[in-house]
Every structure is written in C-alpha cells, then in structure tokens.
C-alpha cells in the first residue's frame, strides 16, 4: 500500500486553504498551526531536490513481514523491544526504509548523506515550512523502531541492525515548540508551526489525558487505546507497546498503547456481508430490541487477535448458538465484542501500570452508538466520557500548538477546552458482569484453541 507523495502535499494544502477561507479569517488571525499525522508511513527523498525516491509506504503495508520474521528468528526481538518499546513488526518505519534502500539500490547514496528519511509529519514540514527543515517530533520518532525511548535519541544499535545511516534521519524536536513558519505563499502569512504529533498521541492530548492512568479509546475500523504512563518508560506486557506520549520543554511523557484489530469492521460485516442492517446506526436499535444475546458470543478475530492474546492464526468464532438465536442477538453480540476487546486491553494496561483508571475518554465513529458506550461502561465498571468535540486528534494538535507558542503555560491550562458531551455511568450488577465476562473468556478460549490447530494445518 502506497501514497503518491505529491497527493499528500497537494490535498493538505488545499484542505488548509479551504478551512481558513471557510472560517472567514485572515491567515494573520492564526496564532499557531499544529500537525497531526498518520504514523509510521515512510518516505525517502533527495536532500538536494526534495524529490521523493519512491512512493510513501503506508503503515498498513505488510511487504516487509518476511524480513521482520527473519530478525525475530535471529533473536533480535528483545533488543528491539527494550530500546524502542515496540514489538518487531512490518508496521513500523524501520523495515520500510530498509526495503526502499534495497529495492532502489540506494544504500550508497544514503551513506553519502544525499537522502532524507521522514514520516509524514517530517515530509510535510520539509515541503510546507520556510527553509525546508528536516525535522520530526518525539512521538513520530517513537514509531520508527529506530528511536531509543529512554534516551530520547536515535539508537545506534537499532540503526546498525537495520542498516540505516544516522545522516538520513531528521532532527527530533519537542512535540510542542516552534518548528518553523509556513511558507508565506501557502496562506499569505508566515503562520508559526508550533506542534507536530502522531495522530493517536495528538488524540491523547486532545482528550486531556495528562495524568498517569488517564486513558482514551478511539473506535474506528479497529480501536486504538492509549494510556498515559507518566514520566518513566513503562515496561509493556502481553503485546502492548510503549511509546512517547509527547515531549514538552525537553520532558517526555510516555504511554502504553494497544489495539483491537476488528471494531467498527464488525459492524460493517453485519451490514456488508450478512446484510442484517442497512447502515451502522441501525445496529443500535437492533441490538436494543433484545434484552441480551441469549448466550451468543462473537469473537470477531477476522484478522487474528491483538493484545493481550496476539494470535495471528485466530479467526472469527461464534459460540452459544441455540435454535432461538436471531439477527438481533448477533448484532448485539457484535457490538458487545467491541466493548469486550477494548475492556481486555484496558484491564491489561491498568495491571501493567498498577492503576485503575477512574474513567475512559472515547472518540471515533462508533462512539455515536449509545448502546455500545453504555455496555463499555457496564462491562469495565468504568465511567465512559464522550466529549463535545469529537475531532480530538485535530484539537490535540491545535492545543499542542497553542502550548508551543506559549498561549497556554501548561497542558492543564489547555484542558479547559475539553468539554463533556455525555457521561455513561456503569449500571450492571457485579455478578451479571462476571457472568458475561466468563462467557466472553470461554468464547476467546474457543477461538484460541481453534487457532492452535490452524497453526499446525493452515487451511486459509
């Protein structure tokens, strides 16, 4: 999976110009601009001309899975995890850089300092900022698998492992702080660019998760959950990742991160493959038309199971079917599965940090589903807070930029911009919760058992 680099720049410039003109303001009315971006996606360009040597390789792209498998077999997993906080995977930038240098036969030019690597933030900065700075921020650097979390610097051992010369890497700056000014030809004024952050970290900030244990969950095709882990690098367990949450005035904060592979995709499955709902919104009414799933449990492991199970061979599993099971029970089971999987992540993060969060902030498309949000609160015995501004990624980038130019003295001052839209309060008897969680655990065990036999005799 690739993007045309020119498309990234052109669409972003158009979006910015349109937003400013629709706001009816002058570019000089913008105190600062923040950039949030898809993470890990990898670009390499010529230092002299700025011309990319290859398309952007998108984070989802699995083309380097074999290379990563080789690194793991050679016993490098512990080194990578200890230094970068990440599990070796094709997802992160390092193996994608390696692929571009090999495929385009560019190792020599990279060694000679003629090439620049950057994630999307870095490529945007290089192309949109006055003076073409080659910069990134600590959150984006943390997703490359080349960055030492504890030392907050590129790591020589990891650079050697992937054969990436230090000279092609961007300078790593604080997440909030002056990166430069926009080229005046873009908006007609040199607007200060005062924050850059990976999208999930920007959302964590936009959700005002400033204290250790504060957690946000984004419900998209999958879920991305990040929990603030404080000022020391956390030791992740069970397939969680450690990452930089942000770095402000030289002081890093860290986060635990985990993902659910199939969340909103389970609702799309009800709609597109089973045809039992016409649109995603209908799933709520259908689920609420029955008081429970009648014991039906769906483990939507369509592409395997993520943390805390990490079983790539798992597949979707439906348990507890009786003669009376109907489409409403199935729809309800699909929505509940999103909450169960998120809850498994949440409990693992809480155990890792030794903190039980008071509440969980939520964003993303599926948070419009009140049934899902209430079930999430019930099953986790946790208050679920849905904010008024659902664009938490952009809000986070904007607030970080405000911090970067000193509009706010500290994150807490910016937090006044976070407003609650609705709070979902847990309302389920403990024995009922325990009964449901046991049912989910049995269904997951069934999926894992079946994955074990699939691993020995793969049939798909």
């Amino acid at each position, binding site marked *: *999976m690739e993007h045309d680099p020119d498309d990234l720049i052109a669409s972003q410039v158009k979006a910015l110009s*349109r937003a400013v003109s629709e706001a009816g*303001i002058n570019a000089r009315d913008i*105190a600062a601009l923040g950039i949030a971006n898809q993470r890990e996606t990898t670009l390499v360009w010529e230092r002299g001309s700025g011309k990319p040597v290859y398309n952007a390789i998108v984070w989802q792209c699995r083309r380097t899975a074999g290379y990563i498998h080789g690194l793991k077999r050679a016993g490098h997993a512990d080194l990578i995890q200890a230094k970068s906080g990440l599990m070796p995977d094709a997802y992160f930038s390092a193996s994608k850089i390696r692929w571009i240098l090999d495929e385009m036969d560019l190792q020599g030019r990279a060694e000679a300092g003629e090439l620049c690597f950057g994630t999307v933030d870095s490529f945007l900065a290089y192309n949109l900022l006055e003076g073409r700075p080659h910069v990134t921020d600590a959150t984006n650097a943390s997703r490359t698998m080349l960055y030492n979390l504890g030392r907050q610097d590129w790591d020589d051992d990891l650079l050697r492992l992937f054969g990436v010369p230090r000279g092609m890497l961007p300078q790593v700056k604080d997440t909030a702080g002056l990166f430069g000014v926009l080229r005046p030809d873009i908006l007609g004024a040199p607007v200060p660019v005062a924050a850059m952050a990976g*999208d999930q970290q920007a959302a964590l900030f936009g959700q005002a998760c400033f204290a250790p244990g504060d957690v946000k969950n984004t419900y998209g095709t999958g879920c991305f959950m990040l929990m603030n882990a404080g000022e020391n690098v956390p030791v992740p367990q069970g397939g969680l990742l450690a990452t930089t949450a942000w770095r402000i005035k030289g002081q890093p904060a860290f986060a635990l991160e985990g993902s659910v592979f199939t969340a909103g995709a389970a609702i799309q499955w009800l709609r597109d493959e089973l045809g039992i709902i016409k649109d995603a919104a209908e799933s709520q009414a259908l689920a609420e038309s029955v008081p429970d799933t009648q014991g039906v449990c769906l483990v939507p492991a369509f592409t395997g199971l993520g943390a805390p199970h990490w079983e790539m061979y798992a597949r979707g599993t439906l348990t507890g079917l009786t003669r009376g099971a109907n489409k409403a029970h199935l729809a309800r089971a699909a929505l509940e599965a999103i909450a169960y999987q998120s809850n498994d992540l949440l409990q693992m993060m809480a155990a890792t940090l030794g903190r039980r969060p008071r509440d969980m902030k939520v964003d993303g498309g599926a948070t419009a589903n009140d049934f899902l949000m209430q079930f999430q609160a019930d099953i986790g015995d946790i208050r679920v807070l849905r904010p008024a501004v659902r664009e938490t*990624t952009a809000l986070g980038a904007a607030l970080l930029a405000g911090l970067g130019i000193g509009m706010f003295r500290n994150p807490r001052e910016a937090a006044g911009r976070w407003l609650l839209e609705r709070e979902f309060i847990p309302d389920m008897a403990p024995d009922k919760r325990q009964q449901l969680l046991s049912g989910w655990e049995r269904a997951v065990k069934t999926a894992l058992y079946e994955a074990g036999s699939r691993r020995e005799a793969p049939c798909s």
Partner: protein
Amino acid sequence: MAQYLAALDQGTTSSRAIVFSPEGRPKATAAFEFAQR
C-alpha cells in the same frame, strides 16, 4: 489579531484541516481524500 489555532490531520485516506476558535470549538473544517494504491 492572532487568536485562532489551526490543525492539520493528515490521515490514511484524507487530509483534513480544522480552524479552532480561541475557546477550542471547531470553526471550519475541510477535508480532501486521496488515492491509495
């Protein structure tokens, strides 16, 4: 007078930009999709 904050949100399927009021409310949003190959 400079008082607004703006953000770019460069995602996997679209490039977005949002202008926020000084109170942190979205004042204008624009998005353009691009191809993935």
